[in-house]
């Protein structure tokens, strides 16, 4: 938390210097809410929060589901399933986000079309899919290590009282693994929020895209991008604060149980 405060303070200083000095490099009028254009601009910029947050939440949700689907075969006794899961994780982790975004947004519809499917991928779903797939490789690894941290005896005990594989996961393994999984999973959400900025290049009207558009019309990149950075900073700090809280809560449970 100390470090975050320091960074905040540094930004605050830059901001102040911009407001007070007459050096001329700053032109905050562009987003000054007391002027009419300034107010319009800042409303437009801040309006990007909705898209960024929606995008991130839907992508994170999909990634959490997809990650589990990838992780479970990765810890099964079946070698073939394990290899399949491994390939997915290594492959997806290796692809940079931007090329994957292009592939999903421009390439995937071509495949759909050739299959006779009339599925349209708009900017929102293109970005959601890309973020979810890219992140799922990481969430899968989080699940895997969380589940593997539960002792083998738990699975065996579940087996000896007749539970099948899914019941064992559902009632015995996952509830215990959850407190090891949840904090790093929440942390991954920060990754998604930051990477969601890439959605701007396929025309998603989120924070970064809106900043770009104002920069193009107002020629004030320094001010607009400074604000943009603050916008992400606020978002990430809020999440990171929530994660800390979650970690503390989970941590106290842990000491109770073991």
């Amino acid at each position, binding site marked *: 938390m100390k470090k975050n405060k320091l960074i905040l303070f540094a930004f605050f200083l830059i901001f102040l210097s911009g407001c007070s000095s007459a050096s001329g490099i700053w032109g905050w009028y562009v987003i000054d809410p007391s002027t009419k254009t300034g107010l319009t601009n800042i409303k437009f910029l801040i309006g990007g929060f909705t898209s960024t947050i929606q995008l991130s939440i839907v992508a994170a949700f999909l990634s959490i589901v997809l990650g589990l689907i990838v992780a479970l075969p990765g810890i099964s006794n079946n070698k073939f399933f394990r290899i399949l899961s491994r390939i997915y994780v290594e492959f997806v982790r290796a692809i940079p986000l931007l090329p994957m975004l292009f592939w999903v947004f421009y390439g995937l519809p071509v495949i759909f079309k050739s299959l006779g499917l009339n599925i349209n991928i708009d900017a929102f779903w293109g970005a959601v899919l890309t973020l979810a797939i890219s992140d799922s490789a990481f969430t899968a690894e989080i699940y895997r290590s969380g589940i593997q941290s539960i*002792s083998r*005896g*738990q699975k*065996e*005990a*579940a*087996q*000896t*009282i*007749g*539970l*099948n594989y899914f*019941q064992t996961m559902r*009632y*015995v393994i996952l*509830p*215990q693994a959850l407190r090891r999984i949840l904090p790093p999973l929440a942390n991954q959400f920060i990754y998604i929020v930051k990477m969601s900025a890439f959605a701007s290049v396929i025309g998603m009207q989120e924070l970064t895209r809106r900043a770009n558009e104002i920069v193009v019309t107002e020629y004030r990149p320094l001010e607009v991008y400074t604000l943009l950075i603050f916008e992400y900073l606020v978002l990430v700090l809020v999440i990171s604060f929530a994660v800390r809280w979650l970690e503390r809560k989970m941590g106290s449970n842990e000491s*109770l*149980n*073991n």
Partner: protein
Amino acid sequence: MIYANHAIEIKNLIKWFDDFNVLNNVNLIVNHGEIVVICGPSGSGKSTLVRCINRLETHDGGNVKVIGETLTNDPKSFAKISSDVGMVFQQFNLFPHLTVLDNLTLGPVHALGLDQKSAEVRAYNLLERVKIPEQAKKMPHALSGGQQQRVAIARSLCMQPKIMLFDEPTSALDPEMISEVLDVITDLATDGITMVVVTHEMGFAHKVANRMIFMDEGRIVEEGKPSMFFKNPKTDRCKTFLNQILKH
């Protein structure tokens, strides 16, 4: 059909861990209601043998039949009889996130399809039987080791198994708690349930066993009625082992 007369029938069982031959041609027939106690030095394959009976380990050769069902490496072969074979582990393996009561009802509700209410009635009966009904609402970590192991026994019994396997059920316990667990197992022994018990508690073995088995290096080296087994071990290896055990 002749096999159905036996609770467990193991023929020429062979098991490898990589290039290590853990079980080397083991033959064992356990009758219904029989109580077999297995002892032997560490690493002799006792746990592995017991775990082959309930498919916690697969085998590489030979034949395992449990209640007339031949076990293959297909998990389904065991599914049919899984609720007929209970197991108690050295480390208890209670579910730490569930109350004692929920530990007991989990199997009956989800594997046997009992409704919550009858599962709880059954659970309370068995907690009564292992003498800790007052602990039902507690979490496992709040119990002593002896109490935890008694909960684990009750949890197995909730499935109404025909066979109970015990793998060193008292080895992880402080000395003063050993007898409370052994008493519970002794009480079960009078019930007619088939039991296979791996233990080094020789006083207990002498009292409850119908048959003693001594294992060494993946083989059954000696077996016999407890009276003969303890008084007159036939092999030197068994003699040496018993002397070491009985010294303390």
